């Protein structure tokens, strides 16, 4: 009997980790979810969610966030696709150089990125001045402090991440497959649409959902460019908890839940499509 306490002594070593995870990961997360269903008077309600979709300001935040994330993801993945394809088909030396640039610039995000774009494309930005001097209209008139400006900066941080994720996927395409298609007198298009794309589609979709989640929760870049003056989900969320406005934690929690649901949806959709593809082939 006297052996028992000594036998469980080791559980003490597990305790600090559990305390950390329970109190700073699990409980905060659950609180956000529970609080989103609580009214300001303390009763259970769906009002917070109804308010989000009935007030223009917040509906706009959801719509803007989805547009910004979807467009930047789409453009990012297309450029990354061609980048990864080029890396796949080039010499080891060039490829290493390219990966080095991608790795380096993948660190360039958030405030520094926003600032760099202010210098480049802001009201007196270097490229804007350049555009004015030489009469290049779209550079001279570009407004960085708008949805277009946000899309431009978001695309920048999507490209290195997307390309780094897609290069190993492209490497999974074996050169023999193409030879076989050509032997069977199939064209290059046949190879890409019937062999290559179906093969890499699940990974490409997975990458897409990573990019979407990355963009929809991004905060620093948009905050540095537009502070609270543009309606995006992460900005509206943080506003409910900090800053000059009256704090509305319950409402902010509901916005946060919407953000989480959008991220989960994105990954479910990409999983769903790739599963259906597999089903078709089976």
């Amino acid at each position, binding site marked *: 009997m006297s052996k028992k306490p000594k036998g469980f002594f*080791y*559980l003490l*070593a*597990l305790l*600090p*980790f559990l305390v*950390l*995870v329970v109190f*700073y*990961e*699990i*409980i*905060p*997360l659950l*609180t*956000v979810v529970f609080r989103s269903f609580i009214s300001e008077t303390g009763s259970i309600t769906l009002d917070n969610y109804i308010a989000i979709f009935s007030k223009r300001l917040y509906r706009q935040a959801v719509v803007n966030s989805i547009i910004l994330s979807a467009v930047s993801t789409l453009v990012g993945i297309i450029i990354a696709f*061609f*980048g990864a394809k*080029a*890396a796949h*088909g*080039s010499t080891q030396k060039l490829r290493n150089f*390219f990966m080095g*640039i991608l790795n*380096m*610039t993948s*660190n*360039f*995000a*958030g*405030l*520094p*990125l926003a*600032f*760099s774009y*202010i*210098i*480049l494309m802001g009201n007196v930005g*270097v490229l804007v*001045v*350049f555009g004015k*001097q030489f009469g290049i209209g779209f550079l001279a008139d570009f407004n960085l402090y708008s949805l277009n400006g946000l899309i431009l900066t978001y695309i*920048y941080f999507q*490209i290195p991440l997307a*390309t780094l994720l897609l290069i190993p996927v492209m490497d999974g395409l074996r050169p023999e497959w193409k030879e076989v298609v050509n032997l069977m007198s199939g064209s290059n298009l046949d190879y890409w649409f019937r062999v290559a794309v179906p093969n890499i589609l699940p990974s490409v979709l997975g990458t897409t959902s990573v990019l979407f*989640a990355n963009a929809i929760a991004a*905060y*620093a870049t948009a*905050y540095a460019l537009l502070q609270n003056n543009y309606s995006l989900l*992460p900005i509206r*969320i*943080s506003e*409910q*908890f*900090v800053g000059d406005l009256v704090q509305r934690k319950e409402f*902010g*929690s509901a916005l*946060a839940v919407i*953000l989480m649901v959008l*991220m989960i949806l994105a990954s479910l959709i990409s999983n769903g499509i790739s599963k259906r593809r597999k089903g078709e082939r089976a």
Partner: protein
Amino acid sequence: MKKNKLNKVIIAAICIYLVLPLLLTFVYSIFSEWKSVLPEGPTLKFYVHLFSDTGFLLPILRTFIISVVPVIICTILILLAMYVITVHLPWLDKYMQILCTIPYAIQGIILAIGVLSLYSGLPEPLSNRIVMLILTYCIVVLPYLYRGIKNSLNSINAALLLETAQVLGSSRFHAFFAIIVPNIVPGISVSVMLSVSILFGDFVIVNIIAGSYYTTAQIYLYRLLFESGQTSSAVVCILFALTLLMTNGALSLYSRLNKKLLVEKEE
């Protein structure tokens, strides 16, 4: 041959697109004026000024402290938990993995508002912003540190080493911390450096939890954005150089370790 050229063009275009903002930010920081097409008056005064200004050096120091402390705490906690799981309760491994993967999926902003709204009304030290920040950062780096430690444990075959040590008469606790841990330190150091560099670049969490309590380099930069363009661009370049040093340090360490392992295996 034609195809090769096309590949080169695509890679060159992407590289130029990615490097251009960085390069121009750097050029902007070493000239005193850039009002027309070309910059004028090369100078290093912005850097000289920053490196002699405690208003900048202190935030840098604070950023290092707030990036390193959570990583140390988190590493120790994971190692202790890993000891229990590897030695005594292997069936818990699955659950630990889930707990350590969740922070990947919940983004920084949700974690930050969750922690802030939960503890801001409570008594000290729970409501202390620095405590909140450090512990939230522990959760942020949890997935990276867990992966690093777990992979290192697998690669040295911890279970076999422990058994051997026990056969030779060592206690299990002693064996884990005197034999296993020193052996995985090189492997862990890569993910430690990566984690430090992630926290080093954080703005979201520190701005929400401790923006007006603890001025890190990122908070300093944010305030500077509305004041001086040139000084801001110098700060951006310095921070970027520091981040590169950390991540490249981690990468070169990693490749050196791999080479060493290969050589050892061949021997």
